Structure formats: C-alpha cells, structure tokens
C-alpha cells in the first residue's frame, strides 16, 4: 500500500452557524479521483475552496505529499477550474493560454496541441467573448493541459458542455489519472471514467 498523496483529516466547515460538514476524512492515491456529491448548498464548493486554500477549514488539516497546503509547491502542483472561468473575455484564446503558462510551468502539451485536444484549433486569435459558453468551458480545460499540474480541482466541469464535450472531458480526466494525476471534482452528471478508481463522498 503506497502512502496517500492527498489527504483530508477531520475536515469541517461551518458557515453562518450552519455545519456544512464535520469530521470529513479522505485519502487519495496517485491516479485516483474523488467525486463530491450532494444537494445544492451542501458544501461541495466550500470543500473545493478549502482544498484550494482560499478558505481555511474550521477544523482539520489537508496534507499534500505529507505536508500542509500553504506552500508554493502545492500551488505549483494544483490547478483549479471553478464556477468562474478565470478567462479574460477581451483577450484572444492564445493570449489567455500563454498568460496561464506564464503564471505556472509549461506542462505536457504545447498550446496548439492542447487546443487541438479540446477541439478549439483555429480559434487561436478569436477574442474569447466571441466563443460560446461550452467553448469557454473547453478553453478552461485547455488551461489544465498547458500548465504543469498533478491535482485537478474541478467545480462542475460539465456545466454547459454538450454530450461530445462531456465525453471529451471524461477522456482527458481518465488520461490525467492514468498519468498518475489526481482529480477532485463536483458534478451532478454521472461520471464515467474508464479505468479510474473513483471515490465518492456524499455531503448532506
């Protein structure tokens, strides 16, 4: 048994005197995915934001490779796609991606390569405001590919994607896990990841 890469120990989150979750425990090995389920307002996004380090957990700790998550090593290893795309609509597709690379480390895929993967080839010089919602979503996936990261934190990655887009996203996720990456995500969509051990946590 190898030691877990991402570990949550006794996590709890209290918001406006309401306990969203308490004593949450999970441990992810390399190549595994964690799916958070639960109704709206059950604390899925709060947990993701705690994992990103935006919020502090009201109790408990998160360990990445055995150390806390408040160092630049963790931030270099993780990537987050949230409700907000983090994409500037006035910039072109290419400018957005090269800025993402400048903020991090260049990853496995070159920019042209990643755009081809998410079927956005030929859109390089298109301002993002001319893209559809689904295309924007795929652009934020491309951002995960062009930067170097091991942990993907995804908040509802399938929103506004069509069937083909969902399939594409699942393929990319499965590939990421096959390469030893980890994924934590929330989704209302039935997750179908080939050959990936998916853990589920139900928040209520």
């Amino acid at each position, binding site marked *: 048994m190898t030691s877990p890469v991402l570990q949550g120990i006794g996590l709890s989150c209290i918001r406006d005197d309401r306990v969203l979750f308490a004593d949450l425990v999970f441990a992810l090995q390399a190549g595994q995915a964690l799916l958070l389920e639960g109704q709206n307002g059950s604390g899925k996004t709060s947990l993701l934001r705690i994992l990103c380090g935006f919020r502090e957990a009201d109790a408990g700790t998160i360990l990445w490779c055995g150390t806390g998550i408040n160092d*630049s090593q963790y931030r270099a290893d993780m990537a*987050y796609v949230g409700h907000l*795309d*983090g994409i500037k609509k*006035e910039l072109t597709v290419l400018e957005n991606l090269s*800025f993402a690379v400048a903020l*991090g480390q260049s990853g496995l895929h070159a920019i042209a390569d990643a755009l081809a993967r998410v079927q956005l080839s030929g859109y390089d010089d298109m301002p993002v405001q001319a893209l559809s919602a689904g295309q924007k979503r795929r652009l934020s996936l491309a951002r995960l590919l062009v930067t170097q990261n091991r942990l993907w934190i995804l908040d509802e990655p399938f929103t506004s994607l069509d069937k083909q887009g969902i399939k594409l996203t699942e393929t990319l996720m499965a590939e990421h896990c096959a390469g030893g990456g980890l994924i934590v995500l929330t989704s209302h969509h039935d997750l179908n990841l080939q050959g990936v051990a998916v853990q589920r946590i139900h928040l209520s």
Partner: protein
Amino acid sequence: MPLTHAFFAVIRRDLILALRRRSEIANPLLFFVLVITLFPLGIGARPQLLQTIAPGIIWVAALLAAMLSLDSLFRSDFDDGSLEQMLLSQHPVSVLILGKIIAHWLVTGLPLLVIAPLLAIFLGMSVHSLGILLLTLLLGTPVLSLIGAIGVALTVGLRRGGMILSLLVLPLYVPVLIFAGNAVAMAGNGLPVGAQINILTAMLFMALALAPWPTAAALKMSMSQ
C-alpha cells in the same frame, strides 16, 4: 516560468486589456481635464488668483482622478475569476500584484503627466513651477496607485465598496497632497523645494516596497468570503 517572466506577463496582459477597453482609461483623464478647465470659468478673470491656487487645483484633481480609476484595478479580475487563478499561482502574489499596479499606473497615472503641462499653462503657471509640478506628479501618482491598491483589495469583495474605499484611502492620500502641493506652490515663489521632493521620493520608495504585501494579504482575505 521564472518570476520575472510572470511579472512582465502581468504588466503586458493588463496593458493589452486597457488598450481594448479604452473608455476606462479615458474616464479619469477626462475628469481631470474637465475639473481643471471648469475652475477658470467659475472663478472669473482673475489670473493672479488662478495662478496662486493652480498647484492645489491640479493636485486635488489628480488625486480625485486617481480615486476614480482605482476600482478598475481588481474589479474585472475579481468578477471573472482571473484573480483566483493569480492567487493560485506558484509565484509570490505580491510580485504579481506589483505588476498589476504598475500597469494600472501606466494607463491612469502617466496620461495625467502628459496632459498636465497643457493644463498648467492654461492656469498661468510659470515654466519653473511646471517642471516641479511634473516632478511631483511623477513621484506622487505612483504612490496614489500603490496606496489605493490596498484599499481596493480590501473592498473588492463588497458589493458597494465605493464609499468605504474613499473613506479608507483619502486620509492616506493627504500627505502626498500636502507635500506635492506645497512643493509646486513654493517653486512658484522661487523658493527651494528639495525637502518636499526628497520626502515624496521617500514616500514612493516606501510604498513600492511595502504596499504590495498588505494588498496581497487583503486580496486573499477578500477571496475567502
């Protein structure tokens, strides 16, 4: 990518964005020009009086124009999630933020410097005090951007932060106004202004070195809401 690359990438990105949203740059500049051109009309044909109060008018207008432009510093990045991504970068946030502030000064502070000579002549300032005015603007407006950034970072998460922002930031702007206005007024009377310029320079270097840290911390706090 190395830190310097990220730093310049932030500046470059913000300059491109400013270029594509020109109205945001034009707004504070237009305000600056309008306020100053209205003064002679309001005061009437009294060139002597106008000349005396010119340094004050220009500096107060510059200060208010800077305040007007502050909100655009982090607002759009906060709204579309770019700021989240910046905070998640492996690079020190304070350095990236300094890049953003520098870009902001280049598009909102620098144009004031370019247009100021015209307005100074309009108000009947002498060439010597015009030189000193430009020097104080060069030293003072970056301080306004740097101090303002702390205030914006604190209020960016609030829905109506504008009022609180003014209350927070204006008192901190007063020292810049006093020393800069005083330097230009004294230059108009032919007195030496070395002391004021030195103090303004010291303020600039202190703000450059110290402002990015609280700004970064405040942004993290705004993000945790």
